[in-house]
């Protein structure tokens, strides 16, 4: 089969010693940042962006993929042992996992999380292997209006899904879109919104925005609300490994989590959080021991952990086949592709098969490396948490400086880091989501290009935007995403009012 041949070719790339080395570096780094609070995979990859100037693309993406997967493994460790999820995808794991750790079953919780991550990561990667080329084939028929519609769908769903308020989601999105208009217009050479500063002609660097909003904003936030109480690590001693019964209770949640996680991750605004919520709710309903939920039910660890890893593989589907990022991490990966002058999408499968298949093959290998790194060595990773907080955040600021100053040794970038860092802090305090800013910044200019291309082809006929079945239905879904949640909330409120009325009448 063609796909199998391609995959074997990919393994030939990924198994080269130098690429194995990068995969290992990525997995170790990913696990470390997953364990540490305040640093996530998106930020880590952004800080490593200067490296892309020196390392060949296949190696760099193999490392980045290791970071993406590794952060999920590391995140589950802190959730279970400390009840402090290192990543948003691990929030649900903390519920049952930490309970298990407190009752001396931490080792079993860590094991089911790691093995579940491995199973789901592998299932997800398999699905990616066979699905991605098919979707890339489909995408060949996409015209500019279809791409535009797809991006509109991406915008609305990111703004609606992320964060707690529609208004704040859209405020974040438009902030990102606005930043994206700064610089030279690629189609006419006009300068836009540069405020007379030559440094802004190339636009605002994605790395600067991401590093400032995440790293600097988070540092300022934690500094201002820092409590000096040290975190207590639950002792692992006395905990025993998974029993036979644990295995019996875990394998179904692993598979169900994979099945929930992958497709949701592959949606334009999937992310890794929602599948974990769904998986947790499902396991709770299906469990033969519902009374154990809240007291440390192993299904509640196995399911969500599998779901978030499968979702991480799902995220790569729209990114690699359509160039559509659905999370902050995917947006950084897209920026990294652009650094190499590559545009993810259907063409990439034809022009750079070694890179893409090497990346996909490395996901299988990375999962194996991570299982080895995390199961026996978990005690070492937990030690990372003994590093005092002030050094972690001091280090984050120093590496943020490396990432920003290393781009082009520009003073303006440093000033932007300071200003955007403050905005990131405000966003953190007032609960504005960051991901829509990044998606708006990186997809906005592309959406504009596609829109203008579509209108140029149609000679200014706006009906072209709904001219194909694909674009019309995508825009329709985008409208639904926008309208449906407030409508449902309104109906629920009315229903509540109606049910409350008779009570008050009585």
């Amino acid at each position, binding site marked *: 089969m063609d796909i199998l041949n391609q995959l074997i070719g990919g393994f030939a790339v990924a198994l080269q010693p130098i690429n194995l080395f990068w995969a290992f570096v990525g997995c170790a780094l990913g696990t470390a940042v997953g364990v540490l609070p305040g640093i996530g995979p998106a930020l880590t990859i952004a800080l490593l962006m200067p490296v892309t100037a020196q390392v060949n693309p296949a190696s760099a993406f193999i490392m980045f993929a290791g970071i993406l997967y590794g952060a999920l493994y590391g995140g589950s460790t802190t959730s279970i042992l400390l009840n402090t999820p290192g990543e948003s995808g691990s929030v649900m794991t903390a519920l049952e996992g930490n309970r298990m750790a407190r009752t001396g079953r931490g080792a079993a919780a860590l094991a089911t999380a790691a093995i579940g991550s491995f199973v789901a990561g592998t299932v997800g990667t398999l699905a990616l292997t066979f699905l991605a080329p098919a979707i890339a084939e489909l995408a060949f028929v996409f015209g500019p209006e279809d791409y535009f519609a797809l991006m509109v769908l991406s915008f609305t769903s990111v703004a609606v899904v992320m964060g707690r308020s529609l*208004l704040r989601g859209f405020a974040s999105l438009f902030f990102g*879109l606005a930043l994206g208009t700064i610089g030279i217009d690629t189609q006419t050479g006009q300068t836009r919104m540069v405020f007379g500063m030559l440094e802004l002609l190339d636009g605002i660097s994605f790395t600067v925005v991401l590093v400032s909003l995440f790293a600097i904003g988070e540092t300022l936030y934690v*500094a*201002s609300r820092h409590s000096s109480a040290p975190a207590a690590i639950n002792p692992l001693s006395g905990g025993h490994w998974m029993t036979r019964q644990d295995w019996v209770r875990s394998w179904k949640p692993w598979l169900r989590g994979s099945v929930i996680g992958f497709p949701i991750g592959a949606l334009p605004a999937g992310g890794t959080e929602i599948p974990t919520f769904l998986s947790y709710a499902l396991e709770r309903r299906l469990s033969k021991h519902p009374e154990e939920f809240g007291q440390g039910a192993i299904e509640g660890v196995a399911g969500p952990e599998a779901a978030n890893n499968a979702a991480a593989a799902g995220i790569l589907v729209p990114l690699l086949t359509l160039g559509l990022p659905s999370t902050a991490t995917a947006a950084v990966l897209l920026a990294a592709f652009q650094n190499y002058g590559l545009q993810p999408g259907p063409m990439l499968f034809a022009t750079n098969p070694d890179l893409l298949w090497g990346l996909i093959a490395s996901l299988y290998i990375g999962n194996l490396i991570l299982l080895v790194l995390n199961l026996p060595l978990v005690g070492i990773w937990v030690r990372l948490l003994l590093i005092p907080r002030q050094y972690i955040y001091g280090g984050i*600021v120093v590496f943020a400086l490396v990432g920003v100053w290393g781009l082009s*040794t520009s003073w303006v970038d*440093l000033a932007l880091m300071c200003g955007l860092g403050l905005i990131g802090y405000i966003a953190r305090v*007032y*609960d504005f989501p960051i991901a829509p800013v990044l998606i708006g910044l990186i997809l906005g200019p592309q959406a504009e290009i596609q829109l203008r291309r579509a209108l140029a082809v149609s000679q200014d006929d706006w009906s072209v935007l709904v001219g194909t079945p694909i674009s019309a239905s995508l825009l329709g879904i985008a409208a639904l995403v926008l309208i449906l949640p407030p409508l449902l909330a309104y109906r629920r409120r009315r229903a509540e009012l109606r049910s409350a009325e008779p009570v008050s009448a009585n």
Partner: protein
Amino acid sequence: MSGAEQARRPEPRRRPWWLGLALAVMGALWLNGARGIASTTNYIGLGPAAIVLAVGLGLTILGVLLMLQALRGEFGTVDDEAEAPPSRRAFLFALAGVAVPLLTMQSLGFPVTAMLAFALVTHGFGSRRTILDLAIGFVLGSAAWFGFSGLGISLGGFLPLIG
């Protein structure tokens, strides 16, 4: 998860109307900027100003809506991780650590700047062993400088004043 969150009702915060105002001002800036962009006449379809205009319009509308929401007191943030009350002093020290590169990066170079930034941030986090922090910061900054120079990434001169 919702049990604990719902049990702790979010305290009614100040009404942050200025957030919406800032967004609306930014929108006005973009709207004004769009006027300054010459539209090329020989171009079919949308010109370069159209998106700037659309984004400016969007920002302004969202800003006004946010302002109204805040003034009605419906903003409702839940800031569930804030166990400790905000400390202005710590915040300012951390901010100084982020801002100090603006003053020192070009003249004193990366390692010294990293040292100062590191020490200021750790001070903000409550560390009082300043000499040790300065030393760690300098070692970290120098290591980063040498490491990235080895990769061929320029972080400027090691100590520009000395040359």
